[in-house]
């Protein structure tokens, strides 16, 4: 079956050319460059112990960020749309802060707050808590940077859904958790999945904040993006691209998972 074009051909052409030039072409280039020195060299680059370590650190940071921000996002979106209290608007505004602050500054703020020059540094040290130049530090800034992604997806949906169904359920004696599970969550499920995908994608690629807080301790606090930068700065272009391709594959995997979830979601609804 031949599909007919309906719409302004000029606009469609602009859109397609733009997507090709800015999205797809660089992606192809990454893959081409990664395999330039041959398949064996590619395998060697990505199985390098430091590369593997940075891969696992990235996975850890992504998983923890997604879990933490899922809970935070749900609670925040709920409390902002379902409760009324003084300062509600202010909190909504503050939740968007990580989007407007440059990640580099986030990294610096964390160094200043938890590093050597901080007034609480010695207190933390006495309790064995080290943030600057450590894995927990990397995870913390990743959480901070990805904080708004899930709540921002949920708030408009919760607002649009309204409270009627929840009130109806409450009147019949349903408790909070039942109401959330049976009534509210089905409404926000799709937005939630999308928020998780955005959050994970953003956490994977985070560079600026992580770059500052990690101290670039190779093999210890470097995530994939940091490892790529180090390789690049050492003029090891082929390995840099090889490792980059891992991020690309992770991103593609994420998109596939999302599409599958949405597909099943839609199928269930029918």
């Amino acid at each position, binding site marked *: 079956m031949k599909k007919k074009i309906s719409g302004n051909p000029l606009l469609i052409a602009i859109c397609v050319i733009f997507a090709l030039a800015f999205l797809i072409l660089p992606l192809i280039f990454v893959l081409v460059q990664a395999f330039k020195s041959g398949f064996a060299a590619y395998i060697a680059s990505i199985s390098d112990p430091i590369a593997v370590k940075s891969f696992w650190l990235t996975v850890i940071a992504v998983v923890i960020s997604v879990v933490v921000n899922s809970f935070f996002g749900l609670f925040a979106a709920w409390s902002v749309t379902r409760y009324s209290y003084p300062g509600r608007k202010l909190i909504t505004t503050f939740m968007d802060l990580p989007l407007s602050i440059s990640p580099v500054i986030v990294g610096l703020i964390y160094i200043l707050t938890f590093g050597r020059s901080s007034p609480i540094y010695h207190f933390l040290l006495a309790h064995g808590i080290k943030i600057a130049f450590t894995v927990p530090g990397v995870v913390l800034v990743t959480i901070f940077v990805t904080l708004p992604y899930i709540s921002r997806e949920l708030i408009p949906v919760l607002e649009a859904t309204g409270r*009627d*169904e929840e009130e*109806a359920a409450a009147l*019949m*004696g349903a408790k909070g958790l039942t109401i959330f599970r*049976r*009534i509210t969550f089905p409404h926000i499920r799709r937005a939630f999945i999308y928020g998780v995908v955005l959050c994970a994608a953003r956490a994977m690629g985070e560079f600026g904040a992580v770059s500052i807080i990690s101290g670039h301790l190779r093999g210890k606090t470097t995530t994939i993006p940091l490892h790529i930068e180090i390789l690049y700065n050492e003029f090891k272009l082929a390995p840099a691209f090889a490792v980059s391709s891992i991020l690309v594959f992770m991103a593609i995997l994420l998109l596939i998972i999302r599409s599958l979830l949405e597909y099943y979601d839609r199928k269930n609804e029918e």
Partner: protein
Amino acid sequence: MYLELKNVNKSFGGFKAADDVSFGVEKGKLVALLGPSGSGKTTLLRIIAGFETPDSGDIIIDNERVNDMPASKRGIGFVFQNYALFRYMTAFENIAFGLKVQKKSGAEIRDRVAELMKMSGLEGLEKRYPNQLSGGQRQRVAFARALAPMPHLLLLDEPFAAIDAKVRKEMRLWLKDMVSRLGITSIFVTHDQDEAVEVADDIIVTNKGRVEQTGKPVDIYNRPRSPFVAQFIGQSTIIENPGCFIGFSEAPKNSRAIIRPEFVEAFKSDNEKYHPIIDATEEGVIKDIAFKGSFYELTLDVGGTTITVNRSLERRPIQVGEKLRVLIYRIYVFDDMGMKVLENSVLGDRAALLD
């Protein structure tokens, strides 16, 4: 009284949604809370249900003060304006929800839901989701869902607002019939006076957060206690200086009056049937004739005042500019002191001649 509100007040910011509201509802009655939008009727319903807490005053259900009782313990069924059906559950699951929450057994739930579905004419639609149902069916599901846990009091917020005119008529009768069969005390909110008059046993008229009048539909229609009620219920036109009209000279100075079309009769001066009472009539000129489906609505100029009157399609043809005799049976006169019904004093007992 099954339900009583005593001196209930509720404000949202500077807006008074309930201003010293008191009324009672007898057991088994179907009562309409009638008022224009923004008159606080939905707020009252939500206060009774327990979704809102009044700033002051008492809510008493079955001789028990329920102000501090959570909504779920008040034994109330609630039908929301847009039904608020659970969108991700089937009709069956919607109706079963309240019973499941009460941890009833599977067999019990199945029996009760089947009974309700049969009663509401929903058989065969168990597996449908709300978006696969028509407006009328959705309303029936909402109704069945509210009734499933056997509430003692049923509250309905604008239950017919979201369905189209034809189905609405049918649903009104269905609801009236259902409520009288079940004998459940019910209150429904509406801004539609026809709906209230047609369906309710009693009407509570609200305006600006206050109760204007309560009573049977006929009484409210025939004896409105305030200009607001007179205007809101039934069709009406306001006239200045009612004392100038023949038969109404007792109307106080500076008063105004409300006339309904059914209080007025207009006929050609050669109509012999009306000759015995011709001295009680005024002269009016037809300014406009509007066809209203089953009758004509005439706009008449009577000595400078505009009066509306209905005319049967069976009577002799008339045209704009024609002069008619206008008989006013009665008017509602009101001034600062209050409101009363005035009958045409010149006509007097002779009204019987026209029957």
